[in-house]
């Protein structure tokens, strides 16, 4: 048998280890696959929302004449009409502002990643700080929106139960809801809450990375790749909000 001399370097199997078949580091790949699994979690919530919505009557009258009732699914733009400090009817304006804040914080995150590629510690610090501030602003907005939703309107809603009892409902909780069916409030708390928890985790992780940048950890390692990895997470959270905005507030 002829002996074949194999040049190990030339014929190295890229799947045999010690190589990066995806030309991305292990950590970055795992972040991608984690986000993929998180997509499944949020898809579960989206499907649940669809099921609950199709299970209830849709409001069929004119939009301008809309009145809340536990019998049909509400029109979101008639529910989320408040903005802070002004007592005017401003449908979806506040949610739009929240969307804008999150997109902006995504942009500052991209700029932080870009600065990391250039090993520019000062710029990374600056943009990470803006990203953290954006996240905190978003969380504050959400806290305000939740408190408005829970407190409810002055008029409230009077419902007659099947057994004839008349109840007055004000605000929303997990068991009663003045804006529409009980499930609407449950899903509002669940979906925006699950997303808010992601934002909160993102802010915590961003703060840790900001700390590491400041004490010079990544300068010592010689790579700012960690900024890129938390960046992926942060953009994903922003993306989820884009979907929540569309499917919870607009459709």
């Amino acid at each position: 048998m002829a002996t074949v001399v194999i040049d190990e370097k030339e014929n190295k199997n890229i799947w045999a280890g010690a190589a990066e078949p995806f030309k991305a580091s292990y950590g970055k790949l795992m972040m991608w696959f984690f986000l993929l699994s998180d997509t499944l979690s949020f898809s579960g919530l989206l499907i649940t929302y669809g099921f609950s919505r199709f299970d209830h009557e849709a409001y069929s009258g004119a939009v301008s004449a809309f009145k809340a009732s536990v019998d049909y699914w509400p029109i979101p733009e008639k529910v989320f009409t408040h903005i802070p400090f002004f007592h005017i009817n401003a449908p979806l304006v506040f949610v739009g502002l929240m969307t804008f804040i999150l997109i902006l914080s995504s942009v500052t995150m991209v700029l932080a990643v870009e600065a990391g590629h250039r090993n520019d510690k000062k710029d990374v610090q600056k943009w990470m700080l803006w990203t953290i501030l954006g996240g905190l602003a978003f969380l504050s907005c959400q806290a305000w929106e939740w408190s408005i939703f829970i407190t409810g309107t002055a008029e409230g809603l009077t419902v007659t139960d099947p057994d004839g009892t008349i109840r007055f409902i004000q605000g929303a909780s997990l068991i009663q809801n003045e804006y529409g069916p009980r499930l609407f409030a449950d899903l509002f708390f669940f979906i925006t809450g699950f997303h808010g928890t992601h934002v909160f985790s993102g802010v915590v992780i961003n703060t840790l990375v900001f700390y590491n940048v400041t004490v010079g950890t990544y300068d010592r390692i010689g790579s700012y790749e960690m900024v890129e990895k938390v960046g992926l997470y942060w953009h994903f959270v922003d993306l989820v909000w884009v979907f929540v905005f569309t499917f919870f507030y607009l459709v």
Partner: protein
Amino acid sequence: MAHGHHTSGHSNQVQPRDPAKIKHLLVVTGILAFLTGIEFVLAFTMHRGHLLTTAFVLLTFVKTFYIVGEFMHLKYEVKLLIWAIVLPVMFIVWLITALLMESGYVLDEIRFIFG
């Protein structure tokens, strides 16, 4: 590029900003803000119905494309990585579509079984 930060002897040196790159990011931001603006206008001008829902879903997909492709940089990764992410997501999108289409049947069955 994503892989431009390999650890080498002189990689710790601060490099100057690249205005073209930053301009590109701002253009993407502008597009995202513009699409959100369109969604707003549609929400208040169009009649609620299948057409409006389709428009919202399409606009959301376009925004997804920009966020994942540009911000998350997936567009510039190797083909294998792109497909490793996009292919499972396509199945998830189908899962959502299929379950929503069959939701009436599923709910009927649940009622039938649990009363």
